[in-house]
């Protein structure tokens, strides 16, 4: 039994902001285990993790670490005790180099002068572990894409030995190969005795990696279950939870069947892209999206999907290529997002904090911004009753967890923030919708709701483009999947043509070509 | 005509640098215009390079101007110092570099000159005397013991302090009561604020003595707004163009004219004379005239 002596215990934890967020939460983390924490958006996972990592102070309850009382007053103190956390939201510092970001709090130096050779070497070593071996550690962080930034952040978290490692949705922006590499690292840490708290909405992952699993619902700990029988233990233990059971515990009710979309008869072409080139990443992209279908975009991280969508939307300059809209033979003039929106395009960006949200503003203002004219009288006076009613309707439709339409978006949980951006675009009612990682950080329940929403939108005759790093998600909801590799669109598969293998091959195919050039 | 100074000069034609206070100030601009006119009339005799600073407070800019003129190897510097002490060392440096230095408008501090062993001929008015003259004229329109207020210039400005002292001399001599003396920073707007507050606080105020005419404009506006335009008298200093009309309308009682257009010219003539004769002429006080409403 000594092998399962708890490393970290939590008893009777309580935390409220305006409303209670955590209520009487108790759980423990053992040495050398991966303890998964799941729950809906806003269930309180991040809040719990932040308390452990010293970023938030609890209102009630007690913590112990290795049997000693533990009440960190800040992140620094928690780290001194060996508790580290990789945050859900990106918290990198754009103007620093990758190496500097990783080692920020402990830059190697002599009398204050940074030892860059040592620093970069150490950084390279750590980047290797997350598969960024050929990334120059002296590159500025701001020049990296979201996926790479998340990997760098994880690398920073892994860079030091610690007793407790908290990973808050580390894989939300990662594709499968990176996830594999991350898991390899987690296995290594587990073997070394680190206790790992793993927060994620990707339940398949959790089934693969978790030793134990806890479910939070509305701030209460609903269940904690062994997912894998500890090696040295004998005797009866409750059976591991199945996916369906986890979901039921999280949501507190039965979810409908996973969507099996009846493919619509393909409609007319709504968007045709020919020979698109943009920036340093997008080299040659041609495809068409039809009304009534969901077109998925798969690809490895950095393959240029995000950049492609931004170029189509006019957010980045196009170097070459034409875009034809709604079956027109004339290329459309899409020089700016404004043009794009006027032509009925919508783009939900992958980086909600920087490119989507108005954090200090109320939810209402975030949702209604693009449709304000609709709620205004002549002269541009906003009718705020109608505005609030409409915003409230979307809170309901998307199950956004909040106090009121007037709550500041900054106070929402990550997933709920994502839904707020979603609501803004849906309210605007465009006919060609591009979603870049719309389910990043969103819980299963909400994911299903979003899938349903996508199908409904497609059913209404809209063209839906879904960019996602989660291949299973693409396989589940798309009518066709386009695969990008090294800035080129290398293949497109229909539902009856695709297999996971074929897609992976297509995703890798561009890189050989690149080196041959 | 400015381009002329840039063109290669005729051999032996002396270059005179005029270093002014703020050219944003009408008074100094008039001074400069007088100098320019003089140079045009005597274009064969010398070249003129005139510079000023942005505002009077920026003393270090003026010192740097002197240094730049030394670097330019001009033959003479005619300077209206923004600070009567701080400019002495720079001018001394110029003198040591063989440049003739003539002090105009604002006289260098005697103690500092003595201490540093420098001597520069001075051409300019006596601000204190001028202010006393204006004050004395005002006193004739007041009953003894009448409460009056002084609006000073920038507190550290020498001529401002001189004018304040002159006003005080006159008021004390005539037995008036100075109820307040505050800075209006030479500005219309600031003076307006101060005077507006003063006439409320001292409802029996009889006169406002302003250290320049711009502030007199602000004082008049404050009195007009309070409906006391006739009953409280205003005097100014400098005789700027804008104040003429006010004098005629009786809104300003008097001001002083220091003949700005001739000031710099005197200085330049001094400098040229020194270049010719290699000897320093004596200081020369230029006239200050009392200006009152023409009809009265």
């Amino acid at each position: 039994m000594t092998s399962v002596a708890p490393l970290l215990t939590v008893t009777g934890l309580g935390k409220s902001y305006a409303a209670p967020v955590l209520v009487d939460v108790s759980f423990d983390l053992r040495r050398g285990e991966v303890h998964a924490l799941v729950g809906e958006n806003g269930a309180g996972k991040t809040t719990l993790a932040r308390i452990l990592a010293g970023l938030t102070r609890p209102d009630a309850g007690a913590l112990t670490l290795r049997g000693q009382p533990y009440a960190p007053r800040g992140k620094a103190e928690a780290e001194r005790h060996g508790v580290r956390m990789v945050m859900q939201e990106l918290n990198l510092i754009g103007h620093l180099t990758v190496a500097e970001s990783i080692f920020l709090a402990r830059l190697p130096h002599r009398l204050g002068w940074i030892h860059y050779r040592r620093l970069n070497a150490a950084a390279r070593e750590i980047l290797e572990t997350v598969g960024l071996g050929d990334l120059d550690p002296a590159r500025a962080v701001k020049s990296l894409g979201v996926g790479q930034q998340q990997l760098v952040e994880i690398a920073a978290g892994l860079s030091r030995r610690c007793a407790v490692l908290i990973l808050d949705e580390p894989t939300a922006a990662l594709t499968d190969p990176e996830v594999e590499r991350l898991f390899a690292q987690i296995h290594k840490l587990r073997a070394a005795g680190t206790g790992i708290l793993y927060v994620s909405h990707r339940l398949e992952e959790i089934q693969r990696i978790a030793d134990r699993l806890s479910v939070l619902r509305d701030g209460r700990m609903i269940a904690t279950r062994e997912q894998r029988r500890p090696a040295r233990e004998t005797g009866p233990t409750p059976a591991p939870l199945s996916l369906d059971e986890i979901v039921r515990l999280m949501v507190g009710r039965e979810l409908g069947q996973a969507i099996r979309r009846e493919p619509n008869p393909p409609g007319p072409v709504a968007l045709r892209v020919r020979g698109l080139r943009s920036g340093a990443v997008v080299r040659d992209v041609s495809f068409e999206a039809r009304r009534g279908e969901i077109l998925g975009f798969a690809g490895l991280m950095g393959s240029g999907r995000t950049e492609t969508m931004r170029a189509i939307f006019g957010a980045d300059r196009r170097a070459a290529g034409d875009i034809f809209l709604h079956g027109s033979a004339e290329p459309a003039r899409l020089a700016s997002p404004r043009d794009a929106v006027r032509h009925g395009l919508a783009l939900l960006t992958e980086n909600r904090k920087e490119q989507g949200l108005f954090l200090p503003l109320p939810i209402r203002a975030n949702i209604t911004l693009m449709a304000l004219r609709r709620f205004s009288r002549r002269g541009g006076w906003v009718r705020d009753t109608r505005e609030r009613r409409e915003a409230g309707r979307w809170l309901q439709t998307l199950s956004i967890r909040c106090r009121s339409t007037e709550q500041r978006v900054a106070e929402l949980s990550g997933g709920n923030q994502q839904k707020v951006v979603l609501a803004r675009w849906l309210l605007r009612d465009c006919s060609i919708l591009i979603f870049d990682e719309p389910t990043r950080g969103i819980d299963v329940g909400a994911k299903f709701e979003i899938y349903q929403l996508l199908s409904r939108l497609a059913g209404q005759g809209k063209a839906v483009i879904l960019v996602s790093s989660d291949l299973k998600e693409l396989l589940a909801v798309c009518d066709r999947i386009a695969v990008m590799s090294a800035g080129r669109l290398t293949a497109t598969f229909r539902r009856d043509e695709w297999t996971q293998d074929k897609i992976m091959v297509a995703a890798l195919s561009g890189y050989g070509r690149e080196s041959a050039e | 005509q400015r381009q002329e100074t840039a063109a290669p000069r005729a051999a032996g034609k002396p270059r005179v640098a005029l270093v002014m206070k703020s050219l944003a100030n009408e008074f100094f601009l008039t001074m400069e215009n007088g100098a320019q006119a003089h140079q045009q009339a005597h274009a064969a005799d010398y070249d003129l390079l005139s510079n000023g600073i942005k505002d009077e407070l920026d003393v270090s800019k003026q010192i740097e101007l002197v240094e730049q003129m030394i670097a330019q190897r001009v033959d003479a510097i005619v300077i209206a110092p923004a600070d009567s002490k701080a400019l002495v060392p720079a001018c001394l440096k110029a003198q040591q570099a063989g440049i003739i230095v003539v002090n105009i408008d604002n006289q260098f501090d005697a103690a500092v000159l003595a201490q540093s062993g420098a001597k520069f001929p001075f051409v300019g008015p006596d601000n204190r005397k001028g202010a006393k003259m204006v004050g004395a004229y005002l006193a004739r329109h007041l009953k003894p013991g009448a409460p009056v207020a002084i609006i000073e210039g920038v507190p550290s400005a020498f001529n401002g302090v001189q004018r304040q002292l002159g006003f005080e001399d006159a008021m004390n001599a005539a037995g008036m009561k100075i109820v307040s003396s505050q800075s209006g920073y030479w500005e219309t707007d600031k003076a307006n604020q101060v005077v507006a507050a003063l006439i409320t606080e001292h409802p029996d105020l009889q006169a406002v003595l302003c250290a320049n005419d711009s502030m007199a404009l602000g004082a008049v506006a404050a009195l007009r707004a309070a409906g006391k335009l006739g009953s409280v008298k205003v005097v100014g200093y400098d005789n700027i163009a804008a104040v003429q009309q006010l004098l005629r309308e009786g809104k300003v009682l008097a001001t002083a004219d220091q003949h700005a257009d001739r000031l710099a010219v005197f200085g330049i003539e001094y400098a040229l004379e020194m270049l010719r004769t290699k000897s320093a002429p004596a200081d020369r006080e230029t006239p200050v005239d009392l200006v009152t409403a023409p009809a009265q």
Partner: protein
Amino acid sequence: MTASPQPASAPRPSAWPRLLTDYLGMALALTALVLVFSLSTEHFFSATTFRTIANQIPSAVLVATGMTFVLVIAEIDLSVGSVLGLCSAVLGVALTRWHWPLALAVGGALAVGAVCGGFNGAVTVRWRLPSFIVTLGMLEMARGGAHAVTQSQTQYIGSAIEGIAGTSLYGLSLPFLLAMALVLVGQLVLSRTVFGRYLVAVGTNEEAVRLSGIDPRPLKVTVFVLAGLLVALAAVIDTSRFESANPNAGTGFELQAIAAAVIGGTSLMGGRASVISTFFGVLIIAVLNSGLAAVGAKDETKRLVTGAVIVAAVIVDHYRHRIGRGRG
């Protein structure tokens, strides 16, 4: 499933009850100042004093209102003082030297303000430059222009222009009433119109606005033009008040306007601003100036006190916000 426990009486974005708490801090600070000065001088607490202050502040209110709009989009305008000088100069010269009719001259001054603002906005937006530096350039240029136009001479205009700032209701001048109206309209525009809401959004996250299909550039240029127009209006008022146009008019106005806005709780980072609070900021500064002059304080004392009050005001505001946050 959704936890949106929205009570029927949820606070409306700008409901009246909130006025109390929103402006309480400012009102208290103001009252305290008035009290101190009333106790330390004989005549300060009088209708005359307040009327005097009311008639002095219109131009400051207009400029600070414009500044508030500029600050809300996370930009800054350092050129307001100089542009005021330039507009005043153009107005004065047009009347005295070119003998334009009053309306035309006023129109000319407004046009100059709009053009300067337009330049600030266009350059800032076109090359994505910090407005700090663009308007710093304009600060120099407009002042140079003012001196060039007037040949550095104060232009005395006389009663030709007196009418604009002439007294009207209960001793309150037309400009004061205009300024009050503008504050109200400004506040409503900022909080209740599509335009105002866009501005707040631009100041909070410009990139997100752009990606939402709203072009922030014309909005920003509009704001700078608006600020320029308000400055020009202030110039007309001041010129009328002084019956003369001074090329040095407005020197240092920029910092005063910013101070007023920031004392009122406007954020320099954009996205948070209130025109009414700015108005309180202007009032605080005006009462302070007037009171210190009434007391007859020494110049250095005035500056020390002014500086301390500015800092104290924002510290007080900090606590007000803390309480506000704790409450809601």
